[in-house]
């Protein structure tokens, strides 16, 4: 099987060996959890409880508010301590519910009535996905039922499951693929049913032969479902890149995958859909990888949503002497942390502790005009120019050469020998341009 891919991209060192052979483990309930009301793109949820209320695992504690929003369920049995601003891994505080887990929590928990995947209707699936609070597990955390409810006029012909996991270190998708292949396929079939789609593709990078083998074997007799091997390259897991590799189609700037007939779902999302429908479980757990040379015992964990990062790091044996950086997410797009009280959120994919050795950065020098960033940008942008125009505050020019198309994947900054913080500049310029466009629209 030859592997498909897109043009551009880079090959960062993988570090997957740290955690790829370690099976998932359940993280014990922490003493206290912090549930930010907004764990997804869109509007924050509305709390349904107040200080002092007793709650049980799986109980709805905040309801969706509006179309693009997702409800939140308690991930422990316990008592509501407070509702107020708390730190989040995104770096700024957000309204959150803090719950004190009860000392000797009996195994009470709330579940929905299980549904039969054979007889369930698309609308029932959508409703269940919405009430289970499922959001995309790929980082942006878009409420999943919105993706499952495309406008009438869009024709969807393929559902693609994103099994690339192209960020270094992260191994949770890989572990899920080899530990829970049946649940994954069941989730995919539910998604296909909801969208009325006949073709399902599981796209996996070719550095995960074990996952490709297992899933290929499992889908042998599944009609319309295939496993596609993709080149190992960052950012193969970006939606546009994945669609290009699988279908050959390019999503135009400013358009969505559904505009070219594709819906992409993450591995974890598909499994969460299966869990919600077949087992009746609301989304209260994050599946994540704890890794990096700076953590004593790398692990793959199911963690109650809301668990502070600190507890998880302690559970994994603490950090080594030479640890210098703690990141939530992958090393290419994740966010460095300064407060370890920040909680795990629904879409948290990993916690990485990096040492000096891994993050060594050389000094910034002037641009050498080497063109490496241009060659590497998967969206064919000119990162050096985008950054330069931003530095010069020439935002119109930056807009003209497509700054708003940038997906902030970090490929350009990774490759730059002059070590210019290209993404930071582009991010800044992009914000300015988006603001400019908004003002223009208001006029």
């Amino acid at each position, binding site marked *: 099987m030859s592997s498909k891919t897109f043009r551009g991209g880079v090959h960062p060192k993988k570090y997957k060996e740290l955690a790829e052979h370690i099976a998932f483990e359940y993280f014990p309930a922490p003493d206290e959890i912090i549930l930010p009301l907004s764990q997804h793109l869109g509007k924050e949820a509305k709390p349904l409880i107040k200080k002092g209320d007793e709650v049980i695992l799986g109980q709805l504690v905040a309801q969706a508010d509006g179309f693009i929003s997702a409800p939140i369920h308690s991930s422990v049995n316990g008592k509501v301590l407070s509702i107020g601003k708390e730190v989040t891994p995104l770096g700024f505080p957000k309204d959150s519910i803090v719950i004190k887990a009860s000392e000797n929590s009996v195994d009470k928990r709330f579940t929905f009535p299980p549904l039969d995947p054979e007889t369930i209707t698309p609308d029932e699936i959508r409703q269940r996905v919405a009430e289970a609070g499922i959001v995309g597990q790929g980082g942006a955390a878009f409420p999943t039922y919105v993706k499952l409810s495309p406008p009438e006029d869009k024709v969807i012909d393929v559902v693609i499951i994103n099994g690339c996991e192209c960020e270094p270190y992260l191994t949770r998708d890989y572990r899920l693929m080899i530990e829970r292949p049946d649940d994954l396929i069941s989730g995919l079939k539910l998604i296909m049913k909801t969208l009325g789609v006949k073709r399902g593709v599981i796209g996996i990078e070719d550095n995960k032969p074990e996952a490709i083998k297992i899933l290929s074997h499992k889908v042998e007799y599944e009609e319309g479902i295939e496993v596609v091997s993709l080149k190992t390259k960052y950012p193969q897991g970006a939606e546009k890149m994945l669609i290009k590799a699988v279908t050959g189609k390019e999503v*135009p700037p400013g358009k969505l995958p559904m505009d070219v007939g594709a819906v992409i779902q993450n591995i974890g999302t598909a499994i969460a859909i299966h869990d919600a429908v077949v087992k009746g479980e609301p989304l209260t757990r994050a599946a994540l990888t704890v890794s990096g040379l700076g953590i004593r015992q790398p692990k793959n964990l199911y963690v109650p949503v809301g668990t502070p990062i600190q507890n998880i790091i302690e559970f994994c044996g603490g950090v080594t002497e030479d*640890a210098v950086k703690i990141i939530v997410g992958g*090393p*290419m*797009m*994740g966010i460095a942390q*300064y407060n370890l009280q920040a909680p795990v959120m629904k879409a948290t994919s990993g916690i990485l502790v990096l040492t000096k050795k891994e993050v060594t950065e050389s000094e910034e*020098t002037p641009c*050498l005009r080497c063109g490496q960033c241009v060659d590497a940008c998967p969206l064919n942008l000119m990162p050096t120019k985008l950054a330069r125009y931003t530095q010069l505050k020439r935002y119109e020019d930056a807009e003209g050469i497509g700054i708003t198309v940038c997906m902030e994947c*970090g490929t350009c900054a990774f490759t730059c020998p002059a070590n210019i913080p290209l993404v930071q500049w582009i991010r800044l310029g992009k914000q300015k341009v988006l603001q400019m466009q908004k003002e223009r629209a208001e006029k």
Partner: protein
Amino acid sequence: MADTQILIEPKQKVYFDLTTSPHLHSQWSTAKVMWFVNLALVPCVASALIFFGIQQILIMLVAVLFAVGTEAAIQAIRKKKVTLFDGSAALTGLLLSLTLPPNFSLSATAIGSIVAIGLGKQIFGGIGYNIFNPALVGRAFLQAAFPVQITTWTKPNYAVDSITSATPLAAFKFDKLLTETYSLAIGNVGGSLGETSAIAVLIGGIFLIAVGIVNWRIPISMIIGMFVFGGALWIINPQQHPSPVFQIFAGSFLFGAMFMATDWVTSPITGKGMWIFGLGISLVLILIRTFGGLPEGVMYSILFMNSFVPIINRYTRPRIFGEQKEVKK
């Protein structure tokens, strides 16, 4: 960015480095790249010492020392950070020396280096800002200032035949004498220090392409250009024009294609631009070699195309992913 120090239980201090993504970086830095290019020139240096004598090391040393010294002096005077160890000034000096004839005077070599760094690089603001390849600026200056000395060639150590000290290109242009491709490949022919051995040049060049420093598009487009333009003339009149193979192997064509035209700062940043640049150099070169008074012209053709790079970059913006062809401006 400020580091915050927080205590992690059990009793462990961690410095939180808060720089933003991406948190990993490729292995390359400006300095490392420059030193790799220097390293890639080792076969050329070796061929120069073998064919023209061990004493040629002096020209190279003088060129490198004066280039580095000039860079440091100017940076000190302008109170800028002295970047001696990034290897770029040393590279300019080394490249310059390899384009000079054997036994070129050491004082003139020193002047060439000073001009290369001063006029070719620092006057534009230092690394990254120059328009013309600094080593070629230095050489162009020497060509103007010492026209006789710079075209006086020495017979190589192992020369076997009657073509004494003239370069193969001059021998063909003025006497219609062809040098065997075998000799050109090995390099025991007259010419500038580092350019006579095609094999040495190719070893270094292929190494740079393999590690990802040199973009293959530039050398390949130059070679294709030579086949097309040089080949056309040769087919029309093989008596008057040498074969494209000769054109490629003789003179500083390969050295220019691998080490001069591919200079990051002064070549285009877009893939399409690199093609235009490479083809352009070959076209100009063929015109100079065929219709100009000089037998050689690699230096001028690269400098000439250097001046078009900003325009080439502007008009070769790649099609943004997913953008329709018609929308392109």
